[in-house]
């Protein structure tokens, strides 16, 4: 037993020595990382002590570190979990976030692959440019339009009537909310999101297509064997990171889409923080809820990365 322990210790020393040696050999890389890491430390890690506000009774004159600890220390968290709406808020947030991810994540990939299939170069450019225009329209304007289109006399109802359905006030209640929320997110984001995949697709070696044509490969085969491998690393990386965004909901849009017929059913974490915290300067409370959200997001990313590492280790984040 003892001997084994000794071995372990000496092994540690050896691996430590090896580590420093290797690091010395890679000093060029370390030097290259210096500037970005410095930025990271100064602008991300130095102010990170702000998280402590969640556990403190913050007094500006004393500073964050000098302020007194909450009693009990999880006071703000307890307050949140005791709130009558807490459970519904968390469920809502997951629901909105997951459904959004389910649609907005694959859409730009499909859109990019479809664009890639267009033969006419000029038309392709026009279609591509058109697709990213909605990204520049502010959420306020988008919601104004949504409200108008969904009203009884609006465009969506004209379409419903054309399809033989009855006119309904689609702004009312929560029935159509998710469709509108996701639909508008897609409309705004699909073209913009596809840019990244289009740039990945530009890495494809065109001679591969010539070879595939000679072999008589069909369209889907070409997509599967040529285009897909080219964007695969990017899609995986984005999937892992998007998993962390499940809880971050576009709260401004929700606020704008809310009305008396749906607001009690539509609360999500971000709107809750907005109503409870920011609008009333309850920094401790809002920091606590934010911290809760961060921890959950972090766990999500960690898990997704674990799964990816099992399946395709070269594409995992670490």
């Amino acid at each position, binding site marked *: 037993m003892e001997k084994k322990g000794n071995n372990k210790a000496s092994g540690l020393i050896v691996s430590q020595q090896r580590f420093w040696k290797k690091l010395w050999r890679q000093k060029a890389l370390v030097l290259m990382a210096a500037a970005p890491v410095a930025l990271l430390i100064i602008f991300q890690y130095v102010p990170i002590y702000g998280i402590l506000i969640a556990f403190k009774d*913050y*007094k*500006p*004159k004393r500073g964050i570190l000098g302020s007194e600890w909450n009693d009990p220390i999880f006071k703000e968290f307890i*307050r949140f979990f*005791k*709130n*009558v*709406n807490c459970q519904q808020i968390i469920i809502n947030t997951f629901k909105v976030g997951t459904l959004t991810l389910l649609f907005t994540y694959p859409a730009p990939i499909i859109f990019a692959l479809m664009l890639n299939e267009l033969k006419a170069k000029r038309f392709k450019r026009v279609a591509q440019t058109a697709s990213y225009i909605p990204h520049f329209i502010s959420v306020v304007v988008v919601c*104004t339009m949504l*409200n*108008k289109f969904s*009203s*009884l006399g609006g465009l969506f109802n004209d379409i419903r009537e054309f399809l033989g359905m009855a006119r309904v*006030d689609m*702004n*009312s209640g929560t029935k159509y909310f998710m469709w509108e929320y996701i639909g508008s997110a897609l409309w705004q984001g699909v073209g913009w999101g596809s840019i990244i995949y289009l740039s990945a697709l530009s890495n494809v070696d065109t001679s591969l297509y010539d070879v595939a044509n000679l072999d008589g490969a069909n369209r889907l085969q070409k997509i599967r064997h040529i285009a897909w491998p080219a964007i695969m690393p990017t899609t995986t990386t984005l999937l892992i990171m998007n998993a962390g965004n499940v809880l971050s909901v576009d709260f401004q849009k929700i606020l704008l889409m809310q*009305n*008396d*017929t*749906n*607001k*009690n*059913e539509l609360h999500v974490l971000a709107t809750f923080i907005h*109503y*409870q915290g920011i*609008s*009333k*300067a*309850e*920094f401790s409370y809002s920091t606590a809820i934010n911290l809760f959200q961060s921890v959950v997001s972090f766990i999500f990313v960690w898990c997704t990365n674990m799964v990816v590492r099992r399946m395709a280790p070269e594409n995992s984040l670490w």
Partner: protein
Amino acid sequence: MKKRLFAGILAGTMVMSGMSAFATTPQDIEVPEVDFSTWATAADNGFELPEIEGGVLKIEANIADFNQSSDGTMVQTLWEQAMEHYLGVDIEVTFNRTAWADYRSNELILLAADDIADINTYSYKEAVNEYGEDEVVLNIADYQDYIKYYWDYVDGHPNGEAVAKNPDGSMYYFIDAINNADDIMGAQSFTAFAYRFDVLKNNDLTPATTLDEFTQLCADLKALIDADAVDADYVLMNSTKDYAFYRGFVGIFHTWDTLYWNGTEWAFGPIEDNFREMLKYLNGLYEAEYIDPEFGTADGNAANEKASTGKALICPTLWSGSAQSWTTAAAEDSGIEWGLAYLPKDDTYGTPWKWGSKLPGKSLNPQMGIIIDADVEYPEYLVAMIDYQYSDEMTTLINWGVEGVTYETNEDGTLTFVDSILNADSPATESALYGTAASCVCRTGIPFVPQNFSALVQVSATTEPWWSADDGYYDGKYWIESDRLGGVDSVSPFDRPAVTNLDSDQSTAKSNLTSVCEGYARGEALKFITGELDVEDDAAWEAYVAAVKSQTDEDFDETIAMLNENSVVE
């Protein structure tokens, strides 16, 4: 293609930069010489101000800008001259201007970071008290010897001393104030219903004076719509989803849509019996299909479209100016004319309450004002300076401008703006060019300088069509008509609350109750109106009351009891 694109952009840019040449700007107006020799000085008032190094008082001020910046206006320039005359030193003020909405989002961060400027506009009273205790904000009670004019407004306000000072005697702010010399106790919203005057006139109808008449009028109008005699879809509409439809009716039923002072104690409107009665009434209107089914979901743009294209005939929820704006926007050949009439009265409750009515004489406006940094070098000067903004000569300058340039004195001593301002397309915008605060478009000096209400009504209140049983159809201004027609009885106790002194935890509990419970109640109350919940069913009502109460983190009833315990009743 790209070249053409560029050329197009360039051409567009040049056209647009050409546009800037036309309009008059505040800088085009010449600043007249004003003789300040008759104006007060700090020395006259017996203030002993310390010697300043270099003789120049340097101040940094974070101020909120309203629709138009006061920077470079005639009144702003004169404000500085008058201040220098009063203080007896040269002043050099650096203004950091931020638009009001943005200012509010920044305000709390600067306070929390202990990084406010020497002088600042504030709008979160509770936060200021908290940061005052924390020595971020100057306790001006320590410099009371340099305050003279502010007291006029504090004394004029009911229980003013308790409003201006905390129970321990500390004062962390100069509170915004108003001088309502003509005692106009009017309001500017939710005090009148808008009616389609053209439809009423054509069909020999008049606006309602009682709630029964109102119900009958709705029935008559509905019959006209059904008979295709009037081209409209619904009788009643809401002005935006941002306002609960019942905001127009709560005053009639003597209740309120949130936490309010009911004259004797604090009460939460949406759980009161009166409120339930009101919901029953509205449910009746809804069941009879008088109300636009989109009343809770259509936004302001949609509502404007409905009103200006004649889709509805009555709107019970609106601000002054809206009726006129709908008439203006409507197509000329449509004949659409919107006008206003005071809230109908219900005999059970008496004269309807109006929301937001002004106090007579000099009074305070407690939610906002000015704060000073606790670490400033010459607090005496800054306190004296802000105090001077409350003097009559200063408020006249800020609100009315300069005699002979922007206003004239009548024989009876009252003031009137000059014709070139009053007859302009928009008197408010025109007077704002000079920088007068009466315009509401622009707030001059270091906001907030007390506003002169008579000046404000002259330039910034729109003239709109009105109707009353005694006068028939006529033109009036919202502020004045809501005062005249409503009378003293219509002033809601909500607008004259008891002073309630709360520490920071208590005020958090209060604002929780106000905002969170109100928000929840709005959603549920709508279900009672549409019949999704049965307002006649006691069990449903009790479940609703219990659910509303459960929304706060603190105990609902205890919070109300706490508010009542801490209230100062005259």
